[in-house]
């Protein structure tokens, strides 16, 4: 029965996560995320701590609800928003990169579930970073999206293809650069990493 089945947001919103190397226009509905923001080079200490904190909260919320017999769901993959990553390649030094790491979460997860999970984790001494995790809604609307296969450093090429594609459609990428990490970089060869790149668009002027 649909109501007792485990919720999988990626399967349930298939169109939003279907990407190929060829860019496409997709409509992204409003969505809720667990989120943590910070600054520093990707892969650096602050970044790794934030990932650990985010997953810690995500799994603690899930398991606490599951234990209480509430509706079960799959914890989604890691995604990140890069507010100062410029679509025109004038990005600052990696050390100054600002990021917002997010994990898509069902709408039925409440702020109270999150604060309770943070409290539990703090009691276990799992680091102060968990206190920065919060629920956030995003409504990206119309986006250009493509699948990037290869090292993260080579994303520029795919982004350029996306930008050109958007222009041909009479659109301009204007929103925050969004990445969805389908592969585990610790386990998958850099040349095979799969990442969905997403850029919210608006109608180009004139």
């Amino acid at each position, binding site marked *: 029965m649909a109501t007792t089945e485990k919720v999988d947001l990626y399967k349930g919103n298939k169109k939003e996560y279907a990407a190929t190397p060829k860019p496409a226009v997709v409509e992204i509905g409003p969505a809720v995320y667990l989120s943590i923001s910070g600054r520093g080079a990707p892969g650096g200490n602050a970044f790794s701590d934030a990932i650990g904190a985010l*997953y*810690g909260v995500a799994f603690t919320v899930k398991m606490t609800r599951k234990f209480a017999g509430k509706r079960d769901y799959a914890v989604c993959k890691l995604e990140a928003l890069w507010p100062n990553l410029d679509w025109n390649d004038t990005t600052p030094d990696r050390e100054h990169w600002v990021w917002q790491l997010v994990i898509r979460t069902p709408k039925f997860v409440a702020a109270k579930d999150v604060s309770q999970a943070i409290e539990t984790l703090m009691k276990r001494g799992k680091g102060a970073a968990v206190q920065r995790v919060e629920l956030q809604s995003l409504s990206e609307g119309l986006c250009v999206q493509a699948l990037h296969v290869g090292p993260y450093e080579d994303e520029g090429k795919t982004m350029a293809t996306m930008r050109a594609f958007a222009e041909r459609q009479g659109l301009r990428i204007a929103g925050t650069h969004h990445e969805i990490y389908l592969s585990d970089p610790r386990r998958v060869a850099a040349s095979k990493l799969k990442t969905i790149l997403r850029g919210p668009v608006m109608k180009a002027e004139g």
Partner: protein
Amino acid sequence: MRTVTLHDYKRRMLRVLVHIQQHLDESLQLEELAGLACFSPCHFHRVFKGMVGESVKEYVRRLRLERAASQLKLGSASVVDIALGSGYDSHEAFTRTFKTAFGTAPSQYRLARRVELASTPSGVHFHEPMTVRFRTLRRGGNMKVEIKQLKPMHVAFMRHVGPYAEVGKAWEKFLTVMGKEGYLGGNPMMLGICHDDPEVTPPAKLRYDACLTVGEDFGPRGDIGAQTVAGGAYAVTTHTGPYNQLGRTYAEFLGQWMPRSGRELRNAPCFEVYVNDPHDTDPEELLTDIYAPLQEVAKGARE
């Protein structure tokens, strides 16, 4: 002190095979066989399977059947006596197994002119002079293995007793309780320890520990226990694919790679680390790191 060679492994395993051949009427316990050749009893079933290509149980059963076949051909004992002498309780059970192995019932076999024996991985047959094809040049000989030095790890665990195919249920329960208590923060490792050989222990009695790394202060509670996974040297390889195919990788690792490695297994259980999440990973892409404990190499052994 010198490092152990492939030749040593073969010589020792040969000792086991000769012993089996000469004691087919005895119960042939795994511990005893392992002891004969100084193999750690923890790992012996996997080393045997990897090197010989059959499990100890399959191997012994086949040799007993082949001996029965030659008794049928060359002797005059009744089928029932031969059945009982081969370790079967009844004529029917013996006939059924015999038919599967030789394609014909014992009574017909006795009358037939000549029956070819099916080929076996090791090439060993009951009535032929023993020449063994050890399988150490197979795939496992070339697997990617890393040697790691581990610190002892404190783990919380829930024991599952039953078929290995059902350990998923134990994990669900275990992770839910641990997750609620906040133990899934800080990227803990998820380990599995199999305590029994599925060839010997009946499925309903197989013991498996689902483990999660925790701090030293963790105390047992309810059906969740605490234990320490021994530190020291480990050989580590990665199994890619469904969990139900782990047995094959274990056999290749311990029975094909290990004999060529110059290293010796330590008498502590292997453990496996689950790298990705079976809930959102295609079974073919599941990654499991297998840790096999090694004896320390004696100082100066390399010189």
